[in-house]
């Protein structure tokens, strides 16, 4: 009799553990998927930059330093490992690109260049996509981390070695979230 009771308890416990484990895996996959979406856009930006430098070089004789900075920031962003380090390197790249585009304003010929206009549009859209994808990624991380750190899932997480994910930090000059009231 008592053997049956013990068996039932063990089976129920096993089912609960399996359910929690699967839930955590699902949330972790969502985070990874959200990250993949950011990654696509980051790669896209890295691919655009050599083209940009090539276009700008002919016009900007005296701004080599700024161009060097962009190339260096791109290199650092491409080799960065992990979410936090990547976020930092990418934000650095964003700010060097900003100062480059500020300089472009001084070159009317370059500004009117068809190739340049296209590149500018592609970089703008890529940056917007990164911003929107980051929002989605951080939402997923928040859900995953909360599930991971609350009782009793934190026990399961400890047993199977789940680790909290890092947030993708935004650069300083970000659009503020809008407060909506209905």
């Amino acid at each position, binding site marked *: 009799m008592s053997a049956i009771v013990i068996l039932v308890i063990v089976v129920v416990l096993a089912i609960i553990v399996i359910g929690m484990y699967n839930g955590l895996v699902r949330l972790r996959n969502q985070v990874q998927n959200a990250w993949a*979406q950011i990654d696509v856009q980051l790669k896209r930006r890295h691919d655009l930059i050599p083209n940009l430098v090539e276009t700008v070089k002919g016009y900007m004789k005296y701004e080599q330093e700024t161009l060097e900075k962009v190339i260096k920031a791109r290199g650092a962003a491409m080799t960065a490992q992990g979410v936090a380090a990547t976020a930092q390197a990418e934000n650095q790249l964003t700010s060097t690109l900003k100062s480059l585009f500020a300089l472009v304003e001084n070159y009317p010929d370059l500004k009117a260049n068809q190739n340049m206009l296209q590149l500018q*549009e*592609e970089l703008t*859209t890529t940056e917007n996509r990164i911003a929107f994808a980051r929002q*989605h990624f951080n939402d997923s991380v928040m859900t995953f981390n909360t599930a991971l750190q609350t009782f009793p899932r934190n026990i399961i997480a400890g047993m199977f070695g789940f680790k909290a994910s890092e947030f993708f930090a935004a650069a300083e000059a970000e*659009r503020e979230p*809008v407060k*909506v009231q209905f």
Partner: protein
Amino acid sequence: MPATGMYDLIRANKRNSWLLVMVLCLILAAVAGAGGAYFGGNDPLPSMLVFGMIGLGIAMIGGLTSYFMGAEMIMAVSRAHLADEADQRQLHNVLEELCIASGLPKPKLYIIEDNAPNAFACGRDPQHSAVAVTRGLMDKLSRNELQGVLAHELSHIQNYDILFATMIGILVGSIALLCDMLLRSMRWGVGGRRRSSDERSGGGQAQALLLVVALVLMILAPLFAQILQLAVSRQREYLADTSGAKMTRDPESLARALEKIAADPEPLAAANRGTQHLYIVNPLKGLSETQSWFATHPPLRERIARLRALT
């Protein structure tokens, strides 16, 4: 992030669309049945049933067509063509960014070759939706303003506002077309009847039938105008404005876009009674927007003020 009460809104939009189709089926069946009874002679019941069934069939076919092909029909009526991916890079980019922000699939993107700045969305659900912008909108608005307008349209898609708006648009459009045709044929019919005096009895009967149909339409027209107003209740436009602003986190750009559209004097040639309620700003200029039966949109000044209050 879904807006508060979004799911109630989606449910209401689906329910209203069903109701609309069912009411339409009943009305058409009843009108056709009455017609059948009138021409049925001594034994009106069989012809009433047959005509009633035919009316019901026509209504059902109409409902199914506008459900499955509504977006294409409205785009054709609005003289819109698909936007080329390579030529319209920026427009496609802006829409794709917003799809990332909202998690919606990318709608089909159309362009209307007209200088009046305006835009609308239609379709039956987010998977089968379409957005149209005018050439004037692309020329006159900045990139961020364009993004605000498209975010407003995507909010309509997300809330299923497009479903009801599309169905009612095709219905009102068909009725308006029918009314125009009828009016024209009656005007010509007066001249034509004199010549064919030997067919007087047949012509007289057809004339009477036309008169009855015209009468029914005249009675129904204000009713549909009322429904049209419901389709674009102020609440829905405000909601699409705010959720659009929430999507882009930039209410100021949408406010500026609305200002520019409001200040533009050009009317939109391809807009008509059946499609006016779809647009972000009512394209039929000359109607003062605060009053009247035809005020399908809330006053722009109020919409802009509400957007500015968000920042």
